[in-house]
Structures are given as structure tokens and as C-alpha cells.
């Protein structure tokens, strides 16, 4: 058993990190904190997950989210996709393993991966709407969000969702409020089988090693850790039975990377040396090339790829 995190004491606790610990802030230049905090991570062990959705409910409860009661469309996923209120979602895939002939029911908890190199933050034109703390957590700051939807485009995992009610972007915060006072995220706390564990990124990698060894002993030769380098690694990682085929797990990207259009935008801002005021001009420019709030046409994508020199996949 991974050592459980002790419950907090009754008296008030000073948050362990805050504004002073930012290493990135969208559309603004900041002086990163001199000393980086220990990087944290959540490890999701798919091989221990029983798909109970306790994490989904814990997320709703802790974050005070009210989701609609939907319908069944012939699958176990409910809701059917991430929404502005559903920040984490169990996704179920039935896969007949051609090698063993056995059916496998692969159950993956989907949600923000908290990339070390966050595409959403890079794409965000609103100063301070997306921030990254030195412990690795990528957080949305609602008050600064302008609802443009670029974060959605910037995310290689298709995570953020824009609310039709208040036109703001929403996603998992890694329970930054809980982590700040020494707790793990609500989903981790609720997980009955320790399929979700939380700690420093190093601890999580070590724990994952043990799990991978166990899986290999059970015949999963390609068991491994999902910590994709294309986004600089992530602060939410998976242990997968078939780490050579992440796509199996409800389309988890094999090699996620930030969209070239975002890299281009990033390059432009650097070149122009835009100030915060200038950013609004850039917003206008981007709005021109992106039709609608959060849709980029295939043509835009191709053009961007060409402009960026095809350096990203």
C-alpha cells in the first residue's frame, strides 16, 4: 500500500504555494520563482482501476460542480464526454488481445495531464488566465479567462471545455487548493483501490516501477509508464499494461505534442516582443485565423504546420 496521506489538522494551514511560486503565466512575462518546489504528480494505475467512478463523484463534490443527469447511449461512460462540470471521466474500452485471445476491459480515468510544457497555457492569449506553479500544477484562473477557447486547441489531450453559461474554460485543477495544504487531490482520496496515488513526481515514478514489474510478471511484457516527452513529461501519469499502444486506452495520444499553430503563435509573440497591451492585437489576429470560438480548420492546421517548418508532429 502506498503510504496514505494523513488527514489535515483542524486549525488553519498556510498554503504551501501561491502566486510567488509561478513559473509560467499565460500571455505575460514573469520572473519565475528562484527556487522550484518539489514537483508533484498523480499516478493513475490502469491495472488497478475497477472503473467505479468514485473519482468522478469526488471531483464533483469537492469542486461543487453540478452536472446534468444525462441518458444512457449504449456505453458505461456517463457523462459521455468531459464537460465544463465534469473534469474527470472514466473511459471504457473493450479490446480483444490478439496475442492472448483474451478480452481486456481497459478503463482509463481521463482528465488534465498537467503537462510540464502546457499547450493550453502557451495558446492562451489572456494574461494570467492560465498559470503553472513550480510544483508542476497547471491551473486556470477563471477571473482572467476570456472564453476564447484557444486552450482547447492548444491542448494535445483535448481536455478543457468552455462553459455555455459563463463562457469560461474549465478543467481539472489537480485540486491545487487541497495540494496547497498538504492533501492529495479529491479523486485520489476517494479511490478505493489505490489506482490513483499522489506524491512527488520521483516517488510516483518509483512506485510505477514496482507496478510495472508486477505487470510484467503477469505476462504484460509491454507494461510501462506514460509520461510523454513531447510535452516535457506530465504531472499526471499512467501505468499502462500496453504502454506500447496508448491509443488503445480510449485514444490516449501515442506521442502528444503541442499543436504547431500554438508553437507558431508562441513564436510570433516572442518575435514581436508583445506587451500585455499588444496582446490584444494578437488576439484579434488569432481570432481572424480561427473561425468560431474553439475550432481550427484543417487548412489552418496545414498552413500552421508549414509556417512552423513542420517541426512538430
Amino acid at each position, binding site marked *: 500500500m502506498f503510504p496514505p496521506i494523513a488527514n489535515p489538522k483542524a486549525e488553519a494551514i498556510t498554503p504551501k504555494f501561491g502566486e510567488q511560486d509561478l513559473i509560467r503565466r499565460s500571455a505575460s512575462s514573469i520572473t519565475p520563482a528562484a527556487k522550484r518546489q518539489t514537483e508533484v504528480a498523480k499516478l493513475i494505475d490502469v491495472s488497478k482501476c475497477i472503473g*467505479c467512478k468514485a473519482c468522478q463523484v469526488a471531483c464533483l463534490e469537492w469542486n461543487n460542480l453540478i452536472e446534468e443527469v444525462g441518458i*444512457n447511449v449504449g456505453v458505461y461512460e456517463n457523462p459521455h464526454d468531459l464537460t465544463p462540470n465534469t473534469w474527470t471521466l472514466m473511459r471504457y474500452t473493450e479490446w480483444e488481445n490478439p496475442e492472448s485471445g483474451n478480452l481486456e476491459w481497459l478503463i482509463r480515468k481521463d482528465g488534465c495531464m498537467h503537462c510540464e510544457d502546457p499547450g493550453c497555457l502557451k495558446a492562451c492569449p489572456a494574461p494570467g488566465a492560465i498559470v503553472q506553479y513550480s510544483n508542476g500544477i497547471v491551473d486556470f484562473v477563471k477571473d482572467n479567462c476570456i472564453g476564447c477557447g484557444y486552450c482547447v486547441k492548444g491542448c494535445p489531450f483535448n481536455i478543457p471545455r468552455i462553459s455555455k453559461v459563463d463562457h469560461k474554460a474549465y478543467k481539472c485543477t489537480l485540486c491545487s487548493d487541497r495540494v496547497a495544504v498538504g492533501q492529495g487531490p479529491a479523486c485520489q482520496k476517494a479511490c478505493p483501490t*489505490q489506482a490513483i496515488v499522489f506524491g512527488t513526481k520521483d516517488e510516483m515514478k518509483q512506485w510505477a516501477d514496482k507496478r510495472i514489474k508486477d505487470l510484467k510478471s503477469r505476462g504484460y511484457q509491454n507494461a510501462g509508464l506514460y509520461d510523454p516527452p513531447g510535452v516535457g513529461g506530465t504531472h499526471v501519469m499512467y501505468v499502462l499494461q500496453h504502454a506500447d499502444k496508448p491509443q488503445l486506452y480510449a485514444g490516449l495520444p501515442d506521442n502528444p505534442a503541442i499543436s504547431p499553430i500554438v508553437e507558431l503563435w508562441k513564436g510570433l509573440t516572442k518575435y514581436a516582443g508583445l506587451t500585455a497591451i499588444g496582446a490584444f492585437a494578437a488576439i484579434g489576429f488569432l481570432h481572424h485565423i480561427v473561425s468560431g470560438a474553439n475550432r481550427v480548420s484543417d487548412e489552418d492546421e496545414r498552413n500552421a504546420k508549414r509556417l512552423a517548418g513542420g517541426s512538430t508532429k
Partner: protein
Amino acid sequence: MTNSWMDIGNADVVWIMGGNAAEAHPCGFKWVTEAKHNRGAKLMVVDPRFTRSAAVADHYSPLRAGTDVAFLSGVINYLLTNDKIQKEYVKHYTNASYIVRDDFDFNEGLFTGYNEGTRSYNRSSWEYVMEPDGFAKRDLTLSDPRCVYQLMKKHFSVYTPEVVERITGAPKDKFLKVAEWAASTATGDRSMTIMYALGWTQHSHGAQNIRCAAMIQLLCGNVGIPGGGINALRGHSNVQGITDIGTLTASLPGYLAMPTDSEPTLDSHLVKRAFKPLQPDQTSYWQNYRKFYVSFLKSLYGPKATPENEFGYQWMPKLDIAYDVLRMFDVMHQGKTTGLFCQGFNPLMSVSHKAKTIAALSKLKFLVSMDPIETDTVRFWENHGEYNNVDPTKIQTEVFMLPVTSFVEEDGSFTNSSRLIQWRWQAADPYFESKKDIEILSDLFLRVRTLYEKEGGKGVEPLMAIDWNYKDPRHPSSDELAKELNGKALVDLKDAEGKVVRAAGQQLATFGEMRDDGSTDGVQWIYTGFYGPNGNFAQRRDNSDPSGLGVYASWGFSWPANRRIQYNRASADPEGKPWSEAKKYMFWNGQRWTGPDVPDYVPTIPPERAVGPFIMNQEGVSRLFTRGFLADGPFPVHYEPFESPVANPLYPKIKGNPAARVFKNDMEVFGDAKDFPIVATTYRLVEHFHYWTKSVHANAVIQPEFFVEMSEELAREKSIRPGQMVRVWSNRGEVKGKAVVTKRLKPLKIDGKTVHSVGLPLNFGFIGEAKKAAPVNTLTPFVGDANAQTPEFKAFLVNVEPVPGPVA
């Protein structure tokens, strides 16, 4: 559970069958993941569906719903024919060596003594040969053809892997892997736990499913050792507690028996339960039954219970027959019941055959519901369209709803599957005007008693005799009631030398202190010690575990006697030495029995005395052959469910379990395979808790709507698209739900014929936040297990068709 939740972490093989622990017991399932993670334990799952438990298993085998006895008998046959049993254990700790009477026999699917007219057996031949000294005859070489071991070999030989496949549809290789993994634990240094739940009990042969599991565990030597046992996973947080407290209609608290009409005196009741030892020197602990019974009567009637009046035995109601839930609703259906109290009970959803339940409830004069939430039952008279199509103008039943507090709004105890009693403290104020159950029942009792006092009436004497000695009679506290369960000394209790061992008024430390002369009381002997002279042990929260075996002896209190693994004397060999270092638990240290747990044995009896480890049994050993204790046979037999797609492949003339009770009008509404070719089974979803959480928004969000699971093959055959509305009907009614088409259900080849199955989750009804649905017990048959009368919810016949309309 014979063992505990935490003890599952000690298993080398975990076998889940007749249950779906990951889904129905997700928190307890953590001990399975711990066993896998820490010990490299293997998990195998056998289930009609590839479940969420199967999703994390090392091996999965399908089987047709309702054929567990055939599968398990196949495993028994495998162990016996391949001699993969723990010989010494079987020889000394089971009745394998006992000689069975010559007139006992098994022929064409029936045991000796069957009476077709009464659907019951004369069980007199299901017995040992008795020696003139009154003890049972044995052959420790196990070679006598009439010994239990030899009879078993013969009885189970029919269940070859081929026959198992033919009946259950489980592919031979998948079945054999299960048998091999089970056999791998018959070594003394490895152990297997078996985890089951309603998937085994809710059959017309439910008790025999569990008998099979017990036999496998005994043959492998897996009872009484860490990581072993037969572990019944209970479905509510306190359902073990309510069973213990005597809510079974034929039980009093602590599994004492209700008196019956044929037992007019206390002695006539007790004499049947004296249970003299069948071997020299055996404990036969039920010999103490009288002490427990008298102590119970003293708690019930207080000073009015005296030796002269048989401690008030005459005031006790006497049963003519057992009023199990099926009988209760059958009697109600006949219009013989005036009123029904439902305390935390939603029978419209939980009793089989909803149409019959509705008709029965409609004949009541009044219905009272005591519940924290509004149940479907209290609104049975409302028309909810196709989901509950009744005519309210035709129903005259008066319905009262009494809102009660939920468990977080009062102090009290929970007893979990591990038999672990844990206290919990009130965490929230009662909601609005809700009252505690205790408060409502006390008020009702006192008012009824006052009315009888004033006006007299039938049965007034027993009512007046009740001892209601609480500080505030209208509000007995949980603390007072807990103390009453435990029991106390009523006078100074003295030992043989006249020394006072327990002063008058003191709480008893163990049930060993109970006496049969009226000098002690105590409602529930098995709980004695939980609130002893040193306080309420259910409140203990010490999580130290010096042995590292998950014993946690100072956390709460496990009945009986704070024992965490039952029959734990069997963890040592006959000489008192552990079977192996790996499974070392309780052992003889030269002076006494010691180890991390409380010995299930007199701690000072040396191994030489050869007192058997199964001290509750007259034999001192466990029973592979159950004598006359079960209604449907001393050995399990494969009987088809009452609704089955095939005739019994072994005994084609026998329909269902020949000893199961079926009421006449219910026999008439069984469907047959011609009209209903598809096997249906019902189950719970992890997203919901029974019928409660459909009233909770977040739970409704994560699983909003009733659905029907089916294979891709069946969907193709019936032209059903995923997400399409389908109609499912049995001979008793119909329901509609969304089609979940899945690879996790596959058609099976049964006796040469392709058989399809559908899965029907039971959590949906017409009250609450989730989408409305007709409850699935609209479809289920009204027949129960031959012994426990638990309804057959897990295997019956239906048909399926798509309903025109938009998909999803």
C-alpha cells in the same frame, strides 16, 4: 465471512464467483489489489458477464447463470480424481472418514426419502452409522466404501470437465485453469480465499452453491488459515448486524431459534438443540444453548422471567411455519394481512415478481414506511405510466410515511462482513422533522401498551411482561441498547470455590460467563464482550498490527469473542504445529494455544486430547456430508434454475430444485424456453447503492438510466443497435431499457445449443433523480432457495426485441 476483509490481503489465490466484489464491494476490494500487489496473488473470476472484477483479474471464465453447482462440482471432482487435496487436514478436520448409513443413496438426481407430493425429503437416512456407545463410526484410512470420502468420489465423478462445459458453457480450458489454481493451494503453504455474494445466494439452490465452496476449501485445507475461508460479502454496511440481531423470521438474536408450535415448553425447545458430541471429548459448543437462551429471556422479561415460569417462555410467540419474505407476500397476496411496517425496506423493488407485490400491497389496510428517503414502495399506488401502471382509484391501502434519521444522524454501531462491530458517532443533525427509529418504535410500543392496558385485548399479557427499563422509556439510548446486547451479571457470579468472579450489575466479559439459572442476562450472546466491564470495544480505534497479518485485534470488536479468523485452530496440524511457516497463525506452544488471534478453542486443551477444531459441530470436525441439516440434500447436485433454456442434462426429468418450495400460483407463471429462449440475470452497478442512490443527484449523473447488456451476436440476431431502446419480457411482465451491446457477454454452447444471455442492472425504479424505469423484479420469478427462501433473482428466462424509435 469466516475470515476478515483485511485477511484477504494474505491470500495467494483470490477466487471471486457468485459476486462481483470490484463492483458491489469496491472498498473491500482494495484487499484484493493489496494481495496482488504485495504477494503476487492471482485473481480469478467466474461470472456470466466479464465484470469490473474480471477487468482486473488474471483469469476469467464465463458460465451460464444458474449453473454454479455444476462448475464447482467439477472442481471438487478435479481435486478428488487428481488427489489434489490436503490429506491430513481432510482426514482429521472433516467428516471424510465418517461412515454413512447403508440406506442412504442417490439415484436419478434424487436422494433417499423424496416425497413428490410435498416436494420434500424424509432425511432420516442422511446420517452416520452410530456405534453402540452413541458415537459415530469412522474409518480413518478413508477406504470404507460407505465413508464420506468414498461416497463423495462417486457422487462427484459425473462432473468431468466435458460435462461441466456441456452444462455451464465454460470452455474446458478455462474451467481447468480455475481448478488448477484452486488445487495449487492444497499444499499447506498457500491459501485461497473465496469471495461471493448474492450471485450465489439468489438461486433456488443458493445454499448448495455455498456448500460447494465450503467443500472445495475444506478439501484444500483453506478454512481457519490466513488468506483462506469462505467469505460472504454483505450488501449493506450493517446487514451483518441485522442478521445477527434476529431479523430473520425464524431466528432470535444470536442465531437462537424462534419457538415453534411443536415446542410448548422451554425444555421441549431446548432438548432438540442439546447437540451431544458424536465423538469422545468433543466440545460441541451448542451444548451451551440453554445459557444463551435463558439470558436472552432475562433481557426480554427482566425480573418477571423466573425459573418457575420457564423464564417467560410462554409469553414468546410460537411459529406455525416460517414467515420468510416470499411467504409473507404470498399470505398478503391472499388478503390475510392487515398492515405492513417497512423499516428501511423497499419490497416493491426487492421482492420478486412486482405484479404480485403490487397486488399484495393493494390488499393491505395500511402500510407504514420508516425510511430516510421516499421509497418506490410507499408510492406503489401511484400511476407512473409504463413504469408502474396501476389504477389508484382501485387501491384503498392507507400509506403512512415516517421520515427517520439516516445513519450519520445518530450514534450506533455497524457490523460489517468481517463480523466487526464498529461504533460510529452522530455527525449531523436530524433532517427537518425526522426521528430516530428507536424513538418511533419506543413511542409506538408505549402507546400500544397503554391502549391495551386501558382496553385489554388478545395477547395483552406478553405485552405487559416486556421489561422496558430505560432511563427515558421514550428515548432508549444507543449506549443503553448496546449494553443490553452484551449482557450483565444480575447477582454476584461465583466460581466453584465461592469466589466472586463477576459482581452483580457488572457487564459480562465473555459469553462463557452466561448462566442458565437466570443470574445473567444478555440479548445477543455472540456479541457478549463487545461492551464488557472495560467499556464499549466497538469504539476502539487502535490500528496496530504486530503480526503484520491484518489482524488489528484492538480495532473495534469482532464477534464471537473478538475472533478475526474463525476455526483458527485448524491453522495448525493435529500436533498443534503450523502447517507451514508461510501460513503460521494459531499454534500450541507447549502450554497453550497462542498466536495473533483469539483461539477458536479452549486455549489450554493440548493437541493430544484430539478435540476437533470445529467446536460448534457435534463431530468436532467440519462436514463435507451435511447429514440432514439442509432440505435439498447432504451433497450438492446440479439442478437447473426453475426457468432454464435446457432440460437438466444430467437428470432430464427433474425441473428445478426438487426440494424448493413453490406456491401454486407461482408455478403457473414460470415461462419456458420455447417462448423465452434467453437467460437473464440481475445485478448491481457500482455507481449505485441498491435502490437508494437513484435519489442522489451525483449517482444519477454517473449512471443515469436503466440498460440491458447483451452480446454483439444477440444484438445482430435481433437487429438491435447500441443505445437503442429494447423491450425485455418474461412470463410475468416487461421492462424497457437502452441496449448496451458488449463483447463482455458471449453466447454459450449449452448441451449442443447456442444460448444467449442478457444482463439487467436492478438499481433503477420510478422514484428519484435517475431516469424512470420499470423495476427489473417485474420480470423475476417468485421462487426461493430450498433452505433460505432467498428469491431466484440471478437466473430466469426472457425474450428481447428492439423498440422502434431513435437511437440513444
